[in-house]
């Protein structure tokens, strides 16, 4: 009986998860490589209320699904800028940009060219 209850509880987890309100947003984010992708996505996923985050290397577009009750859209831009990546709303501070790895220096033309 205990086992069955556990199984039923497991089956209902997705239903509880779906009950939350969600909003989608897409914005350009500067970056170059897979390391950048991981850095951007990790920063966004660490925020409470962010459901899923994906940065596309081809289009440089960040796609975020989030709960607007828990997190404001601007906070998403701030989080990305805080790890050193520019967005249309928030430009990364120079000291944060300085922390990104040498191969991710998207403001340097030589670096962006070497990734194409």
């Amino acid at each position, binding site marked *: 009986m*205990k*086992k069955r209850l*556990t*199984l039923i509880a*497991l*089956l209902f*987890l*997705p239903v509880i*998860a*779906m009950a939350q309100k*969600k909003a989608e947003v897409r914005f350009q984010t500067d970056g170059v*490589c*897979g*390391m950048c*992708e*991981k850095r951007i996505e990790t920063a966004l*996923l660490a925020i409470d209320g*962010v*459901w*899923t985050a994906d940065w596309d290397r081809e289009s440089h577009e960040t796609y975020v*699904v989030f709960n607007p009750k828990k997190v404001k859209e601007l906070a998403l831009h701030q989080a990305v800028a805080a790890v050193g990546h520019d967005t249309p709303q928030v430009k990364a501070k120079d000291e944060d940009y300085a922390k990104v*790895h*040498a*191969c991710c220096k998207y403001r340097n033309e030589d670096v962006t060219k070497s*990734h194409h």
Partner: protein
Amino acid sequence: MYRLRYFALLFPFTLFGQVDTTLYSRLQIEEVVIYEAANGLSINSKSSTLQVNISRTELRKAACCNLSESFETNPSIDVAFTDAVTGTKQIQLFGLAGKYAQIQVEMTPLVRGLLSNSGLNFIPGSWVHSIQLTKGIGSVNNGFESMTGQINVELLKPEDLVEAAEAPGAEGRGDIQLNAYLNQGGRFEVNEAYGVRINKKWMLSSLGHFSGRQQATDINGDGFMDNPLGYQVNGMLRARYFGQNGWEGIYTFHALEDVKEGGQIARAFAPGTNTESLWSSAMKQGRVAFTSKMGWVNPDNPNQSVGTIFQLYSHQMKGSMGSDLPATLHSQWGGAQNGGLAQILFQHGWGTLSQTSSVLFLRDQYDLSITHPMLGQGQPWVEQGVGLSSEWTWSPLPSFTAVGGVRYDLHSIAGHQFSPRFHLRWAPGEKHTFRFNAGRGFRMALPLLEEWGRLASQRTVEWFQYGQVLGGDILSLETARNFGFSYQWSFLLNYMTGSLQADAHLTQFSKAIIHDYWTPGVRAIYPTQTQFGSERPVMTSATWGASLFYHVDKRTELRIAYRFQDLQAMYVMPNPIGGGYGRMLSVPFVAPHRMMAHLSREFKGDWTLDATLQRYSKQPIPGIDPWAWPSVDYAPAFALLNAQIRKDFAHGDLYLGLENVLNIRQAHPIDGAMDPQTGSPLLPSDPYFQSNFDATRIWGPIFGRMVYLGTNIVL
């Protein structure tokens, strides 16, 4: 991303492992990063076979200990004990013993010959980089032995260790990885992995393992220790070479010694009892192996490559079981297997069509002997052969792949063997994948010694054939064909990814070695084969199952799986007048219904919780009614719940787990060990012990709930 997979299917597929990206990492470093960020358990939808990749992330979820235990979070594989005294765990695929799958380490044989029984226990979990589990028959180029599927284990290579330390963002994480583990049952384990770069072309690594158990436990009070005492020392040295002009190589030296001693504990008996002739088991195994793999990719045309595999090994075992009283079945056996293999692979691709062909020589020199009250045999023999294989892959569209392969073996014992194999993959749209496979495989059994744990019994061993029970003749040949079909649906629900997978497989044996326990007190071993003019297989495994993987949210992963397996074999009903009738019966120790649920959740502050619930249905086991044939009992259904909590740090992790949370135990795993009236342990001199002792009717855990603690440290 697509390019990577396409490329990864070419050269490294046959030589350096299916998911090996080392060659490619020289060309496109970033994409490798993405590839490795894959899930713990993932199915490559581009592969023509139904292949599940089990990554290191996944292996951390079931944090103990060796390869046989690595499958505890995997719905396709069952882990079972062979007996209640030697502590050996074996895996089952489609209900069939692991020996019918082809189990390899980096594409070289592992669980074969003398290692069939305990080979999996010789690969420590913390050495493993990843495991590729293929359900359904494997590639012809990897050998003739894949009958139900294929399991390939990729170990940590020098570059895995060196590059992890050199990678940007490693921030002081070094190239020494340490692991330590301790459990309530007294088992401890320490593992080491170290890699160093010598120069631009060469890297070296060492993998070390020491484990053991010094403290005997007897939870159920039957006088027998729950797990054998002993130790294992295991080490591997590896050298990796990346040259110019497309050359690469890896050279591995592996040595191990494993000693296990189990049986009755003197202190379980009343003081003053004569404990000179207690029942005991002992096993000592050693192995030395050297493997060299070299490959060359044409730098002008990466669709052309050549690879060579060369391996030499020597494996020794010496074991005994029983008490020194004449009335008990005391057996002693020993053996050596010295052999090697050499293989050359050629690969060529022309756009949508590619082929891989191989020439393989293998040779095994066996020298086995056994003394047992019913059997006394000893013989040396040589098993050798040459195999030619060719596999053609045609992929006119990204959504369609057809693979056809043929294999011809000229084998010193099995003679001419022809093994065709066929794989088809069709993926209409991105979300749906259908696969079909069919093929044939064969293997050479060592009828008695590949299941030596089952000698822990007073059952008389009957081998009423003119052949050799130790193997080495045509009667030990087992052949099977396998058909499989699967469907995979990848979906996005509530913004999160998930997949549903269903598959059905049929394995039919035309020749098989049957272990017959249906007469109490007797273990009969005999080869059977499909009669001439009949199409009826002598052993069949029909199985289907479905599993659902879903990311409930960004921190929670859920897996639910169900599997039905029906395993039947032709058993010969003894006839007092002579001869016998064949009857298809369910094979014991296979639960027809299996369910699994797995939940994994990450918490803030780098905490992770993993819980796995497995349910085994009622299963047939050999019975004790002497007047019935078959004498069948049923083991009750039971569930196992394992849970583990882990805290990650910058330089490693710490994990604490609970195995068998529900504290399920088989109350009397050893028949005849206890007095039926008083419940006190019996000596082997007791007539009740002598007529009933049997440690092979084991279906469930012996130890019950168990706490363990472990840590990984990167220096």
